[in-house]
């Protein structure tokens, strides 16, 4: 898979037309890897139960994520990708991915999701600065990410220090 990534990155530099798709692949892989460096409260994730990745809408990057995690496990937890719409459904997921197109919807739901043990990952700029836990940032051709430790703490999701070392840390507000 990393070989594939490297390849797509090489192609990306040469051909801007495919860059959007390549970025989506990188982001999908990152989403999967975020789950690896995250730790949910024991009541949120029992041993052996699946890690649920929620999407606010089907299609687009959602498909890419589903393709990436298919048949994979993280520490004996199977991974399930689900499109969620109602707040109840949303509260059942472990990781909620918010595509650019779903940013408005997320803004509506965000206040209700703050302390629910959900690792929120968003595409929109300043996602991590506006209440999300991890937000993708494009720097040149490279996909980077920002983490808001504050938001993570609030949500009750522990993130590995190793992950934090690689991210741009959003300063705490208060």
């Amino acid at each position, binding site marked *: *898979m*990393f*070989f594939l990534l490297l390849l797509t*990155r090489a192609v990306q530099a040469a051909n801007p037309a495919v860059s959007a798709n390549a970025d989506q692949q990188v982001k999908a*892989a990152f989403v999967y*890897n975020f789950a690896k460096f995250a730790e949910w409260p024991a009541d949120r994730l029992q041993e052996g139960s699946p890690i649920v990745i929620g999407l606010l809408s089907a299609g687009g990057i959602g498909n890419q994520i589903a393709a990436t995690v298919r048949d994979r496990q993280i520490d004996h937890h199977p991974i399930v990708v689900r499109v969620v719409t109602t707040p109840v459904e949303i509260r059942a997921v472990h990781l909620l991915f918010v595509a650019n197109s779903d940013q408005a919807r997320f803004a509506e739901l965000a206040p209700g999701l703050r302390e629910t043990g959900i690792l929120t990952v968003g595409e929109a700029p300043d996602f991590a600065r506006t209440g999300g836990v991890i937000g993708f940032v494009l720097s040149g051709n490279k996909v980077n990410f920002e983490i808001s430790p504050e938001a993570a703490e609030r949500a009750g999701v522990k993130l590995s220090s*190793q992950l934090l070392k*690689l991210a741009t840390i959003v300063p705490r507000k208060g």
Partner: protein
Amino acid sequence: MPTFRDLPLARKLTAITVLICGVALLVAFIVFGVYDRTTYRKEMTRDLAILADEFDDNVAPGLVFMDTAALQKTLQTLAANPHILAAAVYDQAGVLYASFQRPDLGGHFVFPVADGTAQHFVSDRIDTFKDIELQGERIGSFYVASDLIAYQLRLRRFATMAAGLLGGCSLFALFLAFRLQRVISDPIVALATTTERVATQKDYGLRAVKHGNDEVGLLVDGFNNMLVQIQARDRALHAANANLEQRVLERTAELAETSGLLEGMLENSPDLIYFKDRQSGFKRFSKACLPRLGLTDPAQLVGKTDADFFDTEHAQLALADEQEIIRTGKPIIGKLEKEIHPDNRVGWVLTTKMPWRNGAGEIVGTFGISKDVTAWKEAEAGLQTEIAERRRVADELKASDAFLHSLMENLPVCIYRKDLDGRFVFANSRFCAIVARPPEEIVGRTDFDLSPPEVARKYLDDDGRVIATRQQFQGEEPHVRPDGTMGWVQTLKVALLNSQDQVVGTQGMFWDVTELKRAANEVQRLNSELIQVSRQAGMAEIATGVLHNVGNVLNSVNVSATLVADQIRQTKAQNVGKLASLFAQHKTDLATFLTQDSRGRMIPGYLDTLAQDLAAERATLDVELDGLKKNVEHIKEIVAMQQSYARNSGVLETISVPDIVEDAVRINAGSFARHSVELVRDYQARPVITTDKHKVIQILINLLRNAKYACDESGRTDKKIVLRITADSQAVRIVVSDNGVGIPEENLSRIFNHGFTTRAHGHGFGLHNAALSAKQLRGALLMHSAGRGQGATFTLELPYQSTSPLHDSSN
């Protein structure tokens, strides 16, 4: 440079001690070094494994989030350890993702291909691979390479220390050994010095000094004891020596005498005497050996073997014998040997060979004596040949005897022998059978016991004549057969001679020829009958010819007779009668009638005419009768000729050859005319010969008849027979050649055989008889034919003396 063995005892002891010390230390160092190396490597690999384990977790996030910068930073921390040569991170697929190498390598470090968790020593470094795992998933490999400089430094230090220790210890050991070895070596050296003095000064009164009671002390005691004994022996020896010299002188004299005897023998013996070493090489030998081997100088023989002088076979046999003697010690006595000398002369020797022992009884070779027995052997061989020859002759005689016996018993001939007194000494089984007595009743008896007296008397007379004249008696004799019938036997009697050419008896043989005789008689009878028949047949042929000719002539006779008869029947003579009756009627008036009457007046004219007619008639009859007479004359001739040939033969007459040929032709003339055969005569000579006319004419008639038949059978129209007579100084040849059917080649050889014929009614006797007759006339009948359809030529050859005048007659 003296070898270790020759070094003084003190040095040997020192060297051994130092060497043992050094070797022990060296082994200890090597064991320790190997142990240290193993331990150190183990430690090193363990340290590196721990290092890799730490790094594995540190690089995982950088790898999954593709943060090369973070990875580089992490790897850079390894620069703190001066022994780390390089480190790298490979992704899942084994592609190098981030790397580090010590700055002094100048970026030339070549990273190996990614591997699973493992550690390898590679020449001057150790490679450590470690799988990078994240949440149970392998996401790449971490690699770190460390140099071995630390280990090498350690090794070098160890080696230096070991060398120093080894040197120091050796020196110390040398010092100690040099001091301590004297405890052992000094007494031995003292003993050795004493020994040498005894040896050089021959002073057996010296004694070695004893230092202690150890083994060397015992040795010194023993040595001193020995010296005491040697001293005693030495004195005894001096005494014995004086005695010995005297004995040696005596012995030498004895030996010289013995040697002289041996030399004398070797010099003068006519036999071959030789001593050979274990390899059968000549060592000593009698002088007689040299000329036998074609040598003059003894030096030429010494050391040589039989193989140098004799044929290979003999040499090998001799060698085998000698080796056997050497091996077993058993002699070979009186062996007869064949020798082929270099000049190919074959000789025989009677050889005795013995083992040659030295004074100690060991076999050092062989010696032998060979006596030349060639002359004796040749005489023996001659004897053997004679015996074989006699045996062969005896066998031949036996075979010959068996052959004779078989002949005597199986031939259908009676054989017997009698002595001079006419007593039978032998009779074969057929003789026994014919006299119907067993042999034992014949042997010892005479003819008077077996045959009627008058017959026996004749036999005795015949025997007496044979004995007296020594001539063979042969004859046919009447013989009374056992069944009483009379028969004939053919008898042959000869005189029996002994080796001194004296008559000792007679031998006779006879066989029954009754049947043979009967058959011969029968043949003779048949033959004469046949000859008779053929003669009659020949005469019949002549008669047929003659009668035919007679018949022809009789035809003419008949014609002439009829003509004469007709002539006479129509003769004008009867008109004379009419005139006479006219004259009778006119007897009275004859003149008136002759002058007045019209018919009377015509009479004188008529008479004139009649006279002329009768004259003419007579002339005609004269001619006819003359011809008739001639014909009758001809018949007479023919009959006379037949009579002349029909006479008994065997009478020689002088005849003209053409005449007899013509006679033969004449006898056949009718038949030639009937069959229109042209006859060509070619008489080149007209000889007169004296011969049996009858046989010649029969042969010629036969040949002419055959020629005519041959022409007839050919069916040709130009039938031709050529008759030729030729003569030279020795023979007359009458050739009858026809152009008829000829004789096929297969019949040429049997044409003269009795009974051979090609004609349907032929009896096959003509030519056979003709040929026989020609032979009886001392001539020959020859025949030639080119083949079927080519005609045939028969030549009758008769003896002739050309002095006889040629018969001069013309046809």
